[in-house]
């Protein structure tokens, strides 16, 4: 028998890591969380244990799904690795609470933390454009949720442009893919009006990506308004709580997001009738107002003219009372000398002409003599 090779510690570590890389490149280990430590706010140290064994694990805090605490049951996915100085550990790639109790506990802790940060506050909620012109849809293209959503949107509002971000909605890569999709939708040059995130129902474990802190924070940080719909019967998920709007199922999301073409058309017809009626009423109202105004004005003008004519009649009567010709009709005459009316015999000059006006004409005469009681005149009739 050939003698066994004697290795240096360095060689042993290198060979062991080669063997591990080939025989066990990735492993899931589920156990109770113990010796949980965060170093320099960057590195994560923990042990997984059961009744008989304990495995050390190491990783970055950025892979944490949310707060964890000692005693929780967790499932770690990672790479077994023998460190040249610190010994054997699992390099953590994913870590999730597992078992109903731990999942609920982790959920409550994260919910409390995010709530205290104000991420679920109502005043953060933005209104969604209605209807949107284009949306970024984050879901799995293979899912029934996607098929239901598309079917309803096409029936209700076929004008919507959908930019699909096809992601895993459960499993190891789900969180990373969803977070990347939210970031990409927000940074896309063809900016959508809205991000819609949908998934069908499942167990709490299946839905864990939508209770993940990284997914929840990416939705909270989205510049685009968000609509999240995860079909399930249990309590709300954190992704739904942080979204601007939540729908109970993917189908419901399609219904709240876009109007129904039929009901819109019906509404338009009703609005058209209503506007026609308003215009018609307004026309009738204005016509009757104008007609009344016209009658009032014509009658007012007529009254004004009649009253002016009556006034003129009165003026005529008054003027007639002062008509100087009236005295001639009563048998009096008017004597004029040198163009002026002479009212006194004493003002007449002998041997001058005077003009006498009577009712029906007049004559000229020469004054032969003046008698203050009698005046002799030579008559020269004229008409």
């Amino acid at each position, binding site marked *: 028998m050939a003698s066994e090779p004697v290795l240096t510690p360095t060689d042993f570590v290198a060979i062991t890591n080669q063997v591990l890389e080939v025989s066990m490149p990735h492993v899931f280990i589920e156990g109770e969380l113990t010796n949980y430590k965060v170093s320099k706010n960057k590195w994560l140290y923990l042990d997984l244990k059961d009744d008989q064994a304990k495995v050390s694990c190491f990783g970055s805090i950025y892979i944490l799904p949310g707060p964890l605490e000692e005693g929780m049951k967790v499932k770690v996915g990672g790479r077994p690795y023998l460190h040249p100085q610190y010994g054997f550990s699992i390099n953590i790639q994913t870590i999730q609470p597992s078992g109903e109790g731990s999942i609920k506990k982790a959920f409550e802790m994260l919910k409390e933390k995010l709530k205290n940060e104000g991420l679920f506050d109502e005043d953060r909620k933005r209104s969604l454009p209605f209807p949107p012109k284009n949306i970024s849809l984050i879901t799995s293209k293979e899912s029934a949720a996607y098929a239901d959503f598309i079917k309803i949107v096409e029936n209700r509002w076929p004008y919507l442009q959908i930019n699909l971000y096809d992601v895993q909605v459960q499993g190891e890569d789900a969180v990373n893919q969803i977070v990347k999709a939210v970031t990409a939708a927000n940074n896309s040059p063809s900016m959508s009006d809205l991000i819609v995130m949908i998934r069908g129902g499942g167990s709490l474990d299946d839905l864990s990506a939508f209770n993940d802190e990284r997914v929840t924070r990416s939705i909270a940080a989205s510049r685009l308004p968000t609509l999240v719909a995860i079909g399930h019967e249990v309590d709300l998920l954190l992704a739904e709580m942080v979204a601007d709007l939540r729908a109970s199922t993917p189908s419901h999301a399609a219904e709240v997001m876009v109007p129904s073409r039929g009901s819109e058309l019906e509404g338009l017809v009703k609005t058209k009738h209503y506007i026609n009626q308003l215009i018609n009423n307004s026309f009738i109202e204005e*016509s009757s107002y104008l*007609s009344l105004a*016209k009658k009032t004005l*014509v009658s007012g*003008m*007529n009254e004004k*003219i009649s009253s*002016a*004519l009556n*006034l*003129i009649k009165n*003026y*005529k009567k*008054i*003027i007639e009372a*002062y*008509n*100087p010709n009236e005295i001639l009709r009563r048998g009096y005459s*008017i004597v004029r000398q040198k163009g*002026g*009316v002479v*009212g006194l015999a004493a003002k007449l000059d002998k041997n001058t002409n005077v003009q006498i006006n009577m009712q029906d004409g007049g004559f000229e005469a020469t004054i032969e003599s003046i008698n203050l009681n009698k005046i002799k005149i030579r008559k020269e009739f004229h008409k």
Partner: protein
Amino acid sequence: MNQDVDYPKLKQELETIISWFEDSNHNLDESFEKYQRTQEIISLMERYLEDSQKKLQVISKKVDSQD
């Protein structure tokens, strides 16, 4: 309608003359002149009002035909 006629002015002139007549002891010649003027004024005012009536009828018919 005679556009040159200033109806309010004519009315004022007529009322001034009537007031003049209402004061006694006027020169007879002046009375003749004033009286003659009143006849002219009244004639102008009557014509103005008759023209107004005619114009009103024309406008009213025109509006009716547009309805």
